[in-house]
Structure formats: structure tokens, C-alpha cells
């Protein structure tokens, strides 16, 4: 039994090839590779296709189907409606096979879809330029911090504690090996917004950038304008935005953001366990040379016909690897194409309507929960579709009960922060019906209060 049945060479073929190049053992080809490990790997034996399929099917069967569940949890990945046409169009073979066009000019369709995507991101964020996507939201934030350091040659980034905790982790991973420093800025316990006094006090001559989230991890909408006013001329304001909220909230670019990045999943992408998704990245034009990723441009050919090309590729790793602005190899362009199709289908009015419904439903849910008198509001700051409340009972038990009823309850913030144990981060989107919300609220009285 051959170990790799998909390799077409027979034993004879291999022997013949080895004779030609004058070796007796395949391992001789690897003698230049440093020996890092000897022995057998602790992994199971290979399996046949039938066995693998059977096993995967069994595993997949243990998952729940989110379509059958009411979802009240967001925290970075959201359950939004995806019009049927989105995946029908975006997963055409023409897009899938050319998802990362190295011979770009032959993939005119992909390039045009990404060009439209960039335009949509610029409009949503209120920025002048956008690239054709990043790996995900977390890496987009980290790349923005690196870019700010390239722009102003300073090494310290002040990051709001109310940024998604996992994004903070990714940013640390990216920056610590490059001699950059990350310092966290607390949130105001009353409003849930960034503590402006602490921000003011921590800005010094080494400050390169300030990173905030809009809305932040607690769902609270930061006051971008106020934050920008505090910052000295050469400190860049990086805003991590939830793109779907921008159908309702003012574009960060119009409020003074220098770089706007974010997780694009909410734009027509499936939740799929948190990935693959894509990140978006937009900036002021004057920083374009320091921006990572690729940009698609529009031009004309010799005959004057419109065509699309990749521009500014020289910052890419396939040209000068050591001097690339970014060394991440995946940009999830196909997921960006999905977003491009989604935005073209819902349109300007549609997006505004979807955003508005998110806002309305979350506010209705919050009002109803507070009315039960079993929850206390936590932050006063205005929110979009997520908010934090503190139950007077055991939140994990409440979530377990809900799960049995096919409801996915709020996130217990204790997962990320001891101080916020038993605090609930609720989310409602356009997909939550009034009936679902009312039913969830009716379940609140079923758990005895505890003294926490």
C-alpha cells in the first residue's frame, strides 16, 4: 500500500529518477535541511476517502444548524441575513478559480469586483483609498498599527481596552517582534467609552497611533471627533469599525480617522466558525505608499478600452520580500468579492434599512430586559446593536436553559475579563424577530436570583 496514492509515480519511476541524479535514497535530497526532529510524528495513520468522509460527516453532525437557532450573541462575528443571490454570484467558478490573481490582468472580472469593493469601502468608511482586503479584522488592526509606525517613525500605540480582546492579542503578536510597544487605555466605567483623561495623559513624543473601536467591544459608540481633537498633529487615529453599523453611524473618515479597518464578515459572509472572513483597510490618500496589501486600479489599454490592473504591487512580498509592507500571504479576496456582491445587492438604501433594524431591535431588547428588573444597565454610552447588562442571576445557567430552547444567549464577558464576570454582552440583528425577543425576555424570571 503506497502512502500517497495521489502521487502518480510508480516505485520504478522513482528509482529511475534517482539513478539519473545519482542518489540511492530520497532522504539524500533533504540533507541540506537542518534536522529539527527525528522519529515518528504522533499522528494517526492515513485513511481512505470513504473513512475520512464518514468521520467528517459524523463530526459535522454534532454541530448545530444556526438557521434553527435564535441568536443573541455577536462579539465580533454576527448573524446577519445573506440574500440568496450573493453566494450564487460570488461563488461562480470564474471568481473561485481566480481568487488570488497573480497574473492579474487576465482576471478582469475578479479585478473589477474588487475595484467595486474598494469603492464601496471608501464610501462606507469616508476614506480616500482602500485596498482589496486583508486576512481578517484582527490582522487588519495589527497591520494598521505597523503602518502608522512607518508613517511617523514612532513606536508606541495606545490601544483602547474596549477593542476586541482577541484583536489586542493579535496586535501584540505582530508588534512585539518589531520593537513596537502597545499600551492599553482604560474605558470610562460610567459611559463605556475610552477614558479621555487617561488618553491625554499617556500621549507622549513616542506615540505613533491611537486605536479605538466603533462601536467598541461593549457595543458603545465612541466619540471619534472628541478623540481626534486630543491627538497631536502627527499621531494617527486608527478606527476599527463594524461595517454594517456604518449604514447608520457617521463614517469615521468624516470625523477625523486617519486609517479605518475592520472585520468584513457582517457584509454578506457566513459566520462559519469565525472564518474565513476578510479584513478591510482604508486610509487617507497621503499615506497610500505605506499601506499594506494590493490596490486595484482602473486604466485604459492601448486602444483606449477600460481595463483593471493591480497597482502598487511593489510593496508586496513577491517583489521585494524583505521590504514588503506586509508578509501575510492570504488576503481572502474571495470573501471580499462576496462582500462586494452583497453591497451591490442590498444597495445604499438597503444597508441603511438593515442598520436601522439592528439598532431598533437591540434597543427594544435592552429596554425589555431592563424592565424585568432582573438586569442592571452597565454603560450609559449610546450603542448600536450590542450592549452590556448585569443580570441578578447566574448568567451561565440562564444561557444553558436558553440553549435547550434553541436560543444562543449573550456572551459572558468574564471569558475575557475577570472584572466583568457574569456581565452579559447581548446582540440583536435584523434577523431577530419581535417574537424571539419577547420569548427570551419571558424566560428571564425562570432563574432564581443569586448574590454574586
Amino acid at each position: 500500500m503506497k502512502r500517497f496514492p495521489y502521487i502518480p509515480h510508480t516505485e520504478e519511476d522513482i528509482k529511475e529518477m534517482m539513478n539519473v541524479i545519482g542518489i540511492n535514497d530520497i532522504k539524500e535530497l533533504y540533507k541540506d535541511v537542518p534536522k529539527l526532529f527525528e522519529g515518528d510524528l504522533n499522528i494517526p495513520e492515513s485513511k481512505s476517502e470513504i473513512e475520512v468522509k464518514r468521520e467528517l460527516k459524523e463530526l459535522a453532525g454534532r454541530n448545530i444548524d444556526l438557521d434553527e437557532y435564535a441568536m443573541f450573541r455577536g462579539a465580533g462575528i454576527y448573524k446577519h441575513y445573506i440574500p440568496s443571490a450573493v453566494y450564487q454570484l460570488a461563488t461562480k467558478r470564474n471568481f473561485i478559480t481566480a481568487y488570488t490573481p497573480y497574473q492579474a490582468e487576465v482576471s478582469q472580472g475578479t479585478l473589477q469586483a474588487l475595484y467595486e469593493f474598494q469603492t464601496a469601502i471608501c464610501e462606507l468608511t469616508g476614506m480616500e483609498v482602500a485596498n482589496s482586503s486583508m486576512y481578517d479584522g484582527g490582522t487588519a488592526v495589527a497591520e494598521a498599527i505597523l503602518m502608522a509606525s512607518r508613517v511617523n517613525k514612532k513606536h508606541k500605540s495606545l490601544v483602547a481596552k474596549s477593542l476586541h480582546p482577541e484583536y489586542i492579542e493579535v496586535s501584540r503578536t505582530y508588534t512585539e517582534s518589531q520593537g513596537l510597544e502597545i499600551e492599553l487605555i482604560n474605558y470610562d466605567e460610567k459611559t463605556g467609552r475610552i477614558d479621555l483623561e487617561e488618553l491625554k495623559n499617556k500621549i507622549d513624543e513616542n506615540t505613533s497611533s491611537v486605536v479605538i473601536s466603533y462601536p467598541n467591544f461593549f457595543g458603545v459608540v465612541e466619540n471619534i471627533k472628541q478623540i481626534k481633537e486630543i491627538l497631536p498633529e502627527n499621531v494617527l487615529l486608527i478606527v476599527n469599525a463594524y461595517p454594517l453599523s456604518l449604514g447608520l453611524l457617521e463614517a469615521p473618515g468624516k470625523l477625523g480617522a486617519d486609517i479605518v479597518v475592520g472585520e468584513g464578515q457582517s457584509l454578506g459572509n457566513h459566520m462559519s466558525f469565525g472564518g474565513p472572513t476578510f479584513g478591510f483597510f482604508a486610509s487617507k490618500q497621503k499615506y497610500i505608499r505605506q499601506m499594506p496589501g494590493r490596490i486595484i486600479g482602473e486604466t485604459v489599454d492601448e486602444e483606449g478600452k477600460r481595463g483593471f490592473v493591480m497597482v502598487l504591487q511593489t510593496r508586496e512580498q513577491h517583489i521585494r520580500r524583505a521590504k514588503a509592507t506586509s508578509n501575510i500571504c492570504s488576503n481572502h479576496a474571495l470573501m471580499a468579492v462576496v462582500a462586494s456582491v452583497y453591497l451591490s445587492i442590498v444597495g445604499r438604501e438597503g444597508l441603511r434599512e438593515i442598520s436601522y433594524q439592528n439598532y431598533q431591535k437591540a434597543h427594544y431588547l435592552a429596554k425589555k430586559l431592563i424592565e424585568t428588573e432582573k438586569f442592571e444597565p452597565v454603560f450609559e454610552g449610546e450603542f448600536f446593536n450590542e450592549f452590556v447588562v448585569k443580570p441578578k442571576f447566574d448568567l451561565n445557567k440562564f444561557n444553558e436553559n436558553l440553549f435547550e430552547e434553541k436560543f444562543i444567549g449573550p456572551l459572558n464577558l468574564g471569558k475575557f475579563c475577570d472584572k466583568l464576570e457574569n456581565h452579559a454582552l447581548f446582540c440583536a440583528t435584523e434577523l431577530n424577530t419581535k417574537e424571539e425577543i419577547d420569548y427570551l425576555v419571558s424566560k428571564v424570571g425562570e432563574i432564581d436570583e443569586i448574590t454574586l
Partner: protein
Amino acid sequence: MRMRKFTKTHEWVEVEGNVATIGITAHAAEELGDVTFVELPEEGKEVKKGDALCAVESVKSASDVYSPVSGKVIEVNTELDANPEIINEDAEGKGWIVKLEISDESELNDLLTEEEYKSSL
């Protein structure tokens, strides 16, 4: 007294007093194709001979420009910001990139004459 010298890495340097004007050769510009951007160094930057002085980007590639001599950048050609194509039009004249204050004139002796450079191509 003026003199013009060349490097193996396709830079030209014209020396007047202790100031060296530096650019890339016509041959290098030809090889690069349409120049789209020149990443100019900052004035005051100190460079050693052989250091990357700046980078020139064309449609499909990017190359470093290496300093033919050690010194301090005293002037950069800001015309190139808006019109990088000057390098294609007149690489060895209006397409100059930086002026350096030379710190060690003996380094000039290691450079190629025009004939030596031409025959090395």
C-alpha cells in the same frame, strides 16, 4: 572641477567640490521601465558607501539605489515626487535623485569611469 563616475550597481555620481550629485544610469532606467515612484531619502540622512540610499519603483518592480560614497544627504530632487517619469526622460541629467556632502573623498577612487561602466554592461 567636475567629474562623473559610475558604479557596478548602475548609479552615476557627479562630483563638484565636496558635493556628489547621484542618480541612476540611463541603462538602469531603461531596464526598470516606466518609473512610477521614487522614495526619496530625508535630508540630513547619513549614509555609508554601499548603503541603500532610496528606492525607485517602476510598474512591475522596485530597486534600491545604493550610495556610491559615504556622506550626508543635503538635497533631494523633489521634482520627482510629482514627475517620477523624469528618470525615464533624462536619467543622467534632470533625473538626479540626491546630493550628498562627501565625507571621504578617497572612496571616489573605487568608482568606475564611463568607459569602464559601459564595457561592463
